[in-house]
Each structure stands twice: as structure tokens, then as C-alpha cells.
């Protein structure tokens, strides 16, 4: 006999709800942390290989303990707060940049429903920390908050490099936030929802609603290729990855906004970069690649797609030089922004004509 699963709610089963929630959060959090740690390792390995060298292989077996050694070392380093720095903002900045990245993870669906029976009742629990009906807006808002980390780092450090790096970075991030924010509007026109879970659900239908094409999933990458390109380029810029890594551009601004940061606070910046990379990959997966849909079991599909994105980011980093600041702004404002608007108009016309 097939039972319709109950939705777990706080009011009906408070303890179970809380327990499941905590388990989900902890799993997601630990997984993210692990991916963050090993993303640094993977990046060093992959870029190393692309550059005909080995990458870390002397710390632990195959160098697998490298991220842990780095983390521990930074943990035990002396923490310098420059005397003329605005100490509160100086400490707040790395947290402000890391926290939004982690918080954004909480609305991303990793997989379909998980069914389990407790106390004789079949429950369906989505593999997602929580599904907001404004999920995408939430992420955009969090990305907006992430800017403060960099602004404050630049402002608080009382160093010219940090100031310049912070300012550059902020201008860059907000410019591309706009392009990214506008590029995904076309998705909502198609999906008619802002909930990430809803968007994934729409993408699991056959392509363009045609049953004959059912072997191709209705991923938005197929009907919104322009939006996808804009999103990927824009988010690369938003998370300061090469070729948009100007704020940290070592060869210009030493370390940009984190020039004055040492020890664990620097580690947080470092982690935030990779956490942001994961977040962005996860969002791109959800919005354009059909989330957890695919040949394997839910979250495995999801992780494969996320890792593919991350590999792409790493690959780009190994290949391309860095843009110049004015070119970056040019690209953001004069190319991506109009293109995003054009994309919206085209999508609108297409929908109206369909």
C-alpha cells in the first residue's frame, strides 16, 4: 500500500522537526566545509597538473592533509590587528564575507524528497535545509551582504592597498551583482516562481513540454543559453575568480583587501573565496542545470554538477590572464547589463508568441 507522505511541520512534531533540521544543517555545513577545504587542495592539484607539475603531495598521503595543515598553521599564527585599524570592523569583515556564503547554502536543494517512517507516519523531508518561496531573492540579498565584508576589510585596514583593493572589489561586485541579478530574471519568467525547489521541479519536465524530446531534460541552460553565460561570467566576477580577480591581484595590489589580514582571519577570507565558489556553482546548477535531476541518485547528480562547475572555474583560472579594471567595468556595465536586458525582452517576446 502506498501512503502519501506527511510533510514534517514544526507545530505537529516539534522535536522531530528540530532534529531533522539540525541533522540537515550539520550535514550540509560539514559537507560544505569539507568541500571548501578540499577545493583548495583540488585547485592546487588540478592547476598544478595543468602546469606540468605535481601540486601538494608531501603532506600526508598524496598531500591530502595539506588543507588541514594550512588551516592549523593559520590557526596558530599570530593575529595582527594594525594599530590604526578600526578594530571592530577589522574583525567583523572576514565574518561578514564568510557567513553569507554559508547562509546561502541553506536554501539550495541538494536532492529530492527523503522518505522515512517515524512513529508509524511516513514523512517526506526535502533534501534542502529550507525551501523559501523567495529563495533566489534570499541568495541575491545574501550576496549583497557579502559585499560588506570586502568594504569593511578595505576600510578598516588603514592600508592603501587594502583600501584600493576593497574599493575595486566592491565596485566590481556590485556591478556584476546587477548583471547576475538581471540575467536570472528570464529564468523566473519561465518558471513563475522564486523558489529554488520549484525551479528545479519545472526543469524536470521534458524539454519545451514536448514528450518526444523527453530524453533531453528541460534544463534552462538549453532555453536560456545567454542567461547562463551571463550568469557564469557574472558570478565569476562576483566571487573574484580569475580573470576577474583584480581585488586580490597579487601583482598589482599585493593581496588587495586582505593585505593586512593574518592568521585565522585571513583563513576566513580564503575559505570564503571557495565557499562562494561552491555557492555559485550550486546556484548555477540549480537554476540552469536542473539541480539534482540526472542519471544518478539525487544528491550525487547535484554534486557532480557542482564539481564540474568548480573544475571549470579552476580551469579558467589556469588559462586566462586577468582583465584590467576599466575593461572589467566596461564588460559589466556596457556589455553584460544591456545583454541581460535584451535577454529579458527576447524571453518575453518568445513567451508571448509561444
Amino acid at each position: 500500500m502506498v501512503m502519501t507522505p506527511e510533510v514534517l511541520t514544526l507545530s505537529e512534531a516539534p522535536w522531530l522537526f528540530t532534529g531533522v533540521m539540525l541533522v540537515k544543517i550539520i550535514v550540509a555545513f560539514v559537507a560544505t566545509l569539507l568541500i571548501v577545504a578540499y577545493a583548495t587542495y583540488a585547485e592546487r592539484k588540478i592547476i598544478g597538473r595543468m602546469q606540468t607539475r605535481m601540486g601538494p603531495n608531501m603532506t600526508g598521503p598524496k598531500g591530502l592533509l595539506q588543507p588541514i595543515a594550512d588551516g592549523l598553521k593559520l590557526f596558530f599564527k599570530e593575529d595582527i590587528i594594525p594599530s590604526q585599524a578600526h578594530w571592530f570592523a577589522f574583525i567583523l569583515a572576514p565574518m561578514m564575507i564568510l557567513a553569507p556564503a554559508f547562509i546561502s547554502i541553506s536554501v539550495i536543494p541538494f536532492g529530492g524528497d527523503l522518505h522515512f517512517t517515524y512513529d508509524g507516519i511516513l514523512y517526506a523531508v526535502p533534501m534542502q535545509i529550507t525551501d523559501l518561496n523567495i529563495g533566489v531573492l534570499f541568495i541575491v540579498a545574501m550576496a549583497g551582504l557579502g559585499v560588506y565584508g570586502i568594504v569593511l576589510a578595505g576600510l578598516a585596514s588603514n592600508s592603501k592597498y587594502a583600501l584600493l583593493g576593497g574599493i575595486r572589489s566592491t565596485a566590481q561586485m556590485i556591478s556584476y551583482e546587477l548583471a547576475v541579478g538581471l540575467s536570472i530574471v528570464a529564468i523566473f519568467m519561465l518558471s513563475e516562481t522564486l523558489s529554488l525547489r520549484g525551479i528545479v521541479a519545472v526543469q524536470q519536465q521534458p524539454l519545451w513540454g514536448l514528450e518526444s524530446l523527453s530524453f533531453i531534460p528541460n534544463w534552462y541552460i538549453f532555453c536560456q543559453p545567454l542567461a547562463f553565460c551571463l550568469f557564469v561570467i557574472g558570478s565569476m566576477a562576483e566571487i573574484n575568480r580569475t580573470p576577474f580577480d583584480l581585488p586580490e591581484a597579487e601583482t598589482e595590489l599585493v593581496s588587495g583587501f586582505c593585505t593586512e589580514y593574518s592568521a585565522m582571519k585571513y583563513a576566513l577570507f580564503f575559505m570564503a573565496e571557495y565557499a562562494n565558489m561552491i555557492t555559485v556553482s550550486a546556484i548555477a546548477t540549480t537554476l540552469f542545470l536542473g539541480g539534482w535531476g540526472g542519471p544518478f541518485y539525487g544528491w550525487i547528480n547535484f554534486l557532480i554538477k557542482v564539481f564540474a562547475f568548480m573544475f571549470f572555474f579552476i580551469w579558467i583560472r589556469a588559462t586566462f590572464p586577468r582583465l584590467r579594471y576599466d575593461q572589467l567595468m566596461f564588460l559589466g556595465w556596457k556589455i553584460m547589463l544591456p545583454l541581460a536586458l535584451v535577454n529579458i525582452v527576447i524571453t518575453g517576446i518568445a513567451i508571448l508568441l509561444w
Partner: protein
Amino acid sequence: MLDIYLPILVVMGIALAFALGSVVLSRLVGVKKPSEVKLAPYECGMPLIGSAQERFSIKFYIIAMLFILFDIEAVFLYPWAVMFKRLGIFGFVEMGVFIIILLVGFIYVWKKGALEWE
């Protein structure tokens, strides 16, 4: 309401606790040997020229300002996009007018050279 937002609150708490905890713990266990030079701002090893609190170009400000205005536009676009299929051609024209008016501003800014750096 709490059903949905409680987990976010918890995640927020955990994320902040993690960030704060690691910073504070690291500060506690790190060696502390401050000196005047160490706490001075980094300047490639040279004595400071001028103050780090110098001003920078107005252009950055223009970028931030434009961002606000276009951000508002994006904010208007979200509910519109979600409602688009239900609003139909009417909604399309409506937003078209809105975007065109804003584009006028954008083109003005472009022509004024506020987006140029050289």
C-alpha cells in the same frame, strides 16, 4: 512562518558562531608579540607616504550610485517576472516603458562618460 525561517536562523547562528569562534580562538592561541612596526600599515617595506586615509576617485561613487538605481529596477523586475505569464502582453508593454525610461538614464550616463575610466 517559523517552519521555514527557523532553519535559516539556525544556519545563520552556526555560520556566525563558526566564524566568530575561529577568529576568537585563534586570537587566543596565537602568539602575541606586537611591535610598533608590526602594527604599522604595510607599504612594501617603505615608510608611509601620506596617509592611508586618502581619498579616491569619485568614479567609484558613480558606480555605486548607478548600482542602486539599477538594483531598484531589478527589484521591480522580480515580481514582474514571476507574474509575467499571467500579466501577458499588458505586463510586457508596462515593463517595456519602465525599462526604456531607465535606459534613457543609462544611455545618458554612458554618453556622459561616467562609465569611462580614462
